[in-house]
């Protein structure tokens, strides 16, 4: 991402206020990418848990399941496994929601900054993702 402003043609004075806006934009942009990665990996994990729930539907109720807790597999009943999965899933859903909210708010802030910065600097500034 290039943030250099080319004063040469557009010849607009950059004020401290503008600079802070540029900084915020760059900060939000980086934050957004981080959230994106985080969101994807959490979503993936949730999908795994969904698959697992489906698989366990088919399991015999009296079966014991080797469930990974930490680094070791521990033999637990199907019911216990289902409880653990549900609990983990709930946490993930909450986290996903939170990340989604943050991403939305960042997006909003970024569009506001974009309006201001493009309005002032025009083509002299580039705020698009490469």
């Amino acid at each position, binding site marked *: 991402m290039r*943030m*250099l*402003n*080319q*004063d*040469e043609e557009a010849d607009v004075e*950059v*004020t*401290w206020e503008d*600079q802070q806006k*540029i*900084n915020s934009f*760059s*900060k939000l942009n*980086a*934050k957004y990418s981080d959230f994106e990665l985080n969101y994807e990996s959490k979503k993936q994990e949730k999908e795994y848990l969904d698959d697992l729930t489906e698989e366990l539907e088919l399991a015999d109720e009296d079966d*014991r399941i*080797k469930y990974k*807790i*930490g*680094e*070791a*597999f*521990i*033999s637990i009943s199907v019911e216990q496994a289902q409880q653990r999965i549900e609990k983990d899933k709930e946490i993930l859903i909450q986290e996903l929601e939170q990340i989604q909210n943050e991403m939305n708010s960042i997006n909003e802030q970024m569009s506001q900054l974009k309006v201001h910065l493009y309005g002032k600097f025009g083509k002299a500034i580039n705020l698009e993702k490469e």
Partner: protein
Amino acid sequence: MSETRQATDKPNSSAEAVLETNPRGIPKVQFVENVEEFISKSSAPVEVTLGKFQETVAKYKFMEINFLNRKKGLELKIPEISKTLTVVEYLVSKQDSDEPIETTFELNDTLWANATIKSTKTVNLWLGANVMLEYTLQEAKELLENKLDTNQNALKNVLEDLEFLREQVTTMEVNIARVYNWDVKRRRTLKTTSTV
């Protein structure tokens, strides 16, 4: 800190004696409000100022690399602690039952063994530096929760610092671009006036 030199040495009237820093003592760069004024106050030629600016950017980038490494370290450590914590929590939930815990654990890569564990009230925690200590489950849980908290806080700080560093680099890059462009324009005017 050597990084502070740039900001304090700048011969600018608005430069304050007290250096602004973030909560962890990383100095803030100075924004060039008016290029012309800034350059004329400095006795050094434009090239020197630009060189100094670039040096500052390099210093911040160096710090950024350090912080990124720290971030990586913490991002490895935190899941490890929380994994251990889940096991301890599981043991806590089992501590009053007589039913033994059946596990399959890793002896080595691709080699797993079965073990039956009688319900336990204590665990040994690996503290690092070849030290292992026995804790009661409750103590182990508290210790791990504490550690998790500390590390999560540290990660939060590192992320904040990284943001701050990025801001400083952006400010400095804009400074460089503006001083450079100002210089190009000045040279052009000089040229046209001298040829006339």
